[in-house]
């Protein structure tokens, strides 16, 4: 594709901190290359604002290669922007054309309070993991790869679920602000492997209890989460989590 440059209008959510009321501010950006990433486009704007002595737009990012899950922008009514199976850092400006107006909001959910501008506090996800998203043994040095037999299909399904980068787009997209896709990815990833099997019951119970405590909503299977997940985590995992939870809850004393 030919490289081209464009001028854009950005409407960006600005909010000083969690307690202050936020608002949209409008910015013009000029000569943006179609080969830039979306975050580089924001960098250009931020550098200009710094030169002018203004407060740059705060946003989360780390790897900028679609693997860390830090970047989080709700762009024109869709978490991570218009592309499928994609993070904002991997969204490129060739998705836009000259003269476009782009509206950028932070993830919105009570469980993800805004820290500043487009940055939200996702430590509720960390606490859900801490509640049970682990295997409680000292693993020591690696054992022989074939010492524990693992069914290939199970290993593949587990690996697909383990691809979740904990970005929170699923919560951001869900009308109920439910974290079930994230939770189901973590539970599935561990439940399908022999190492995770002994704790699968208590894990599902503990993680769901923590999710409820953090103020996420209940899932109603709308499928919006799956549609925006940058890692293609399947909604079938939610049904598996329901099964794990029910099986555990019905027998737990």
């Amino acid at each position, binding site marked *: 594709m030919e490289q081209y440059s464009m001028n854009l209008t950005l409407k960006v959510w600005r909010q000083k901190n969690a307690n202050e009321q936020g608002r949209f501010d409008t910015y013009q950006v000029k000569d943006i290359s179609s080969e830039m990433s979306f975050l580089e486009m924001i960098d250009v704007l931020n550098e200009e604002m710094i030169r002018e002595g203004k407060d740059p737009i705060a946003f989360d990012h780390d790897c900028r290669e679609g693997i860390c899950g830090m970047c989080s922008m709700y762009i024109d009514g869709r978490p991570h922007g218009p592309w499928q199976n994609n993070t904002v850092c991997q969204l490129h400006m060739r998705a836009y054309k000259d003269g476009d107006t782009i509206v950028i909001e932070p993830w919105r959910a009570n469980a993800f309070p805004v820290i500043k501008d487009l940055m939200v506090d996702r430590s509720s996800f960390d606490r859900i993991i801490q509640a049970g998203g682990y295997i409680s043994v000292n693993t020591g040095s690696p054992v022989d790869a074939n010492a524990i037999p693992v069914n290939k299909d199970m290993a593949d399904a587990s690996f697909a679920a383990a691809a979740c980068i904990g970005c929170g787009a699923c919560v951001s997209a869900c009308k109920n602000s439910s974290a079930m896709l994230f939770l189901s990815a973590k539970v599935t990833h561990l439940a399908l492997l022999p190492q995770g099997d002994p704790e699968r019951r208590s894990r599902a119970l503990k993680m769901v209890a923590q999710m409820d405590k953090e103020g996420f909503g209940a899932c109603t299977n709308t*499928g919006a989460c799956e549609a925006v997940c940058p890692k293609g985590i399947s909604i079938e995992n939610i049904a598996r989590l329901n*099964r794990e939870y029910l099986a555990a809850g019905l027998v737990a004393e």
Partner: protein
Amino acid sequence: MKWSELFTSSVGKKVIMALTGIFLILFLIVHVGLNATIWAMDGGEMFNKGAHFMGSNIVPRILEIGLFAGIILHIVQGLMLEFQNRSKRKQGYAVAMGNKGSKWYSRSMGVLGTLILLFLVVHIADFWLPNRSNQGFLLGEEINLYDKMQEVFKQEWVVALYLLGCFSLAWHLLHGFQSAFRTFGVSNKKYLALINCVGIGFSIIVPLAFAMMPVSFYFGWV
């Protein structure tokens, strides 16, 4: 884990919705089957026999209590869930996500359910209440329900409300039928495909059959 903990968790609440929802679906099968006898073209003879069996027999009358309990639980829990879920995002989005990724009816279960409820109130006041009060709420003399239908379905607004009820039910079931099985934990693609097909068929055929009942009376087809 106590029962109370299990059924008040986010997943547990959904399981109650699914259990009561499937129970209501089972009821609908019986209800639509019995009512279809209005099309026997015998002036309501077969229909009234069926109605008499259901109304004068102790077993359906006991099941009726379960039905009321089930629907009340479904409605109360459904509306509470709807409001709780809405409260989880105090600050909304300026640009709504809309249909990017989910179907409108899957996001409108509360509204669709409320429309069904509106219809249900009128429906119960039309038939169940007069019939049962005539029976002294025990096993007494019933009224002729076929004649009653002929009378009730002469009014345009009643027919319109019944059609709205059936229309809402169709969309409610289109999401609800398959959603209930996901809530029970069916994640196997092979079964989900089957459930989806049956669900779509059920959601179209049953509400359509119900909708044709007031229409048939209104136009004098029966």
